């Protein structure tokens, strides 16, 4: 896999529902596929932003991982953006205090979510998977975590992207879109959020 060494084009903030924000250096194809995925699948305007440094106080030395909750809090607190939701993406391995690792993390109805590409490259036996499969996993995690920020809980419908997936196998088994029910819930939640005048006029 080729790492994109080239610095991405500077991006200007616009009026968007979701901001995609790289934390540290993140491959361009990952950012592109996430932005396209959210925009194409959820049909929500996405704003792809310039990267910022990973906040170092989120690093847990004892575990050699970043604390996903600390990253979420950082995004919530430190950044005022012209968007309804923020998805932070990092290439670093992330975890939380009770779990050895997470693919992504979000609070129900929260403003920010975070995801990591670190654990999505491996096959079942540890061998690297194809670029397509890797990017497919990235998109699923992104949609899933953003779904939680819109109050979607784990879904039990067949292969819906909102199914809980605690392993790569479970992640691979689901599809990269919302089932009909989750789609309805998502738009209900979005409509509710847009009723908030601050959100509706884009001043947030």
């Amino acid at each position, binding site marked *: 896999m080729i790492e994109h060494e080239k610095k991405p084009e500077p991006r200007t903030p616009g009026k968007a529902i979701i901001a995609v924000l790289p934390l540290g250096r993140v491959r361009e194809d990952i950012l592109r596929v996430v932005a396209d995925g959210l925009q194409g699948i959820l049909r929500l305007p996405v704003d792809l932003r310039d990267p910022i440094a990973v906040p170092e106080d989120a690093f847990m030395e004892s575990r050699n991982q970043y604390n996903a909750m600390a990253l979420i809090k950082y995004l919530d607190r430190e950044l005022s953006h012209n968007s309804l939701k923020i998805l932070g993406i990092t290439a670093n391995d992330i975890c939380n205090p009770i779990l050895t690792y997470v693919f992504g993390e979000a609070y129900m109805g929260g403003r920010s979510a975070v995801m990591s590409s670190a654990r999505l490259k491996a096959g079942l036996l540890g061998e690297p998977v194809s670029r397509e499969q890797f990017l497919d996993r990235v998109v699923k995690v992104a949609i899933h975590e953003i779904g939680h920020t819109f109050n979607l*809980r784990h879904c039990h419908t067949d292969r819906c992207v909102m199914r809980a997936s605690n392993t790569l196998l479970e992640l691979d088994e689901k599809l990269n879109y919302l089932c009909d029910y989750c789609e309805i819930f998502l738009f209900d939640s979005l409509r509710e959020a847009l009723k908030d005048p601050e959100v509706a006029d884009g001043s947030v």
Partner: protein
Amino acid sequence: MSRKNRFMVVDDELIVRESLAAWLEQEGAVVDRAESGEQALDFMQENFYDILFVDIKMPGMGGFGLLERAKKSFPTTVVVIITAYGTVDHAVQAMKLGANDFLVKPFEPEGLGIMVAKLMEHKRLLEETQYLRDEVTRCWGGPDEIIGQSKPMLELFDTIKEVAPSESSILILGETGTGKELIARAIHAHSKRMGGPFVPINCGAIPESLMESEIFGHEKGSFTGAVRPKKGLIEVAENGTLFLDEVGEITPKMQVDLLRVLQDKLFYRVGGVEPIRADFRLISATHRDLPHEVAQGTFRQDFFYRINVITLRVPPLRDRREDVPLLVTRCLQRFARETNRDVDSINDEAMKILVEYDWPGNVRELENVVERAVVTSKRRIVTPEAFAYLTGQDICAGAGFSPRSLEQVEIEHIRRVLEEEEWNISRTAKVLEVDRTTLHKKIRKYGLNR
């Protein structure tokens, strides 16, 4: 998920509390957070929790203290202990105190998902058992619902509770309409087999020719019409209670067959060669005088001893008249509700008639009488006129008054033949030229009794 699960995370460390709660919320649960055992107990006064996640090391009451209090006051709440690496021995100790599982942080995400799913399944089963237990209690009504406060009934309730847990066969004696099946259900509900089925068989109502295959089942092709194998009621009663109502009606051959099952704990389906294990508790009931029939040689003595390890006698209603007002009031309310009528009381004179009446058909007859009064009453209060026909009947029996309605003629005729044949059902049925089932139905319908 029909009802939202409610969990509580109890941890003095904000970051653990938050991350676990956030994870559980994604599963669709309502999650409360408490930072101490004391606060958790406060919350538990307000809400019902499916699972508590409790950190062991907390100031104040601590995890162990909370575990003990929670298990004592809320036994169906599942408790999961949270511990850190290196303190697993604490978790073991917690399990001994009744914790359902423990969580050593940090945890593999997959393991947490599986654990929560497993605990919810465990809870579902607990609740299902509880539900079934309630259902059973509701169906037979409980001792105060079953019949009354008279001394003979209170004694009977005590005996039920005493004998229910044993595995011994029980024979319930009592006149028609005294509620023998309710008593049998009560025994089942208080026995170790309450989780299993209660299978009633009315031996007087099943035609003789079908009895064998009903009870033992049959294999395919064992007789004409046996197109597929069929489980017998003995098999259906596996792990539960088999209730043979009107046991006095079963044929001598059937008595031998059942005796064999009771002795060997094995039986064969009709046409079957494989022995099948029988695991049921037998309760029988009859309104007949079986010791008398044993003495006469019409009922097998060995079978009688087998089914009659414990004898319960249900007193006839006329021997516990003090229960009549209670029963009448209950019935009145029930029928008024069921038929949606504004009849809600009965005056003293009317009640006096009912208390003094002899109730040959026992509780069943009382129910019929009250139902009729409710349905025909034009006023809120039931008055003596509603029961004129009862006293009238007494007069006609006493004065040799000739019955007028077709029904009255039938009742009197059946009663006379029954008396002539000394209440032998088969002989009476033969004389009346009806089958035993029809005769039984009529005896029950008219509340006839020797």
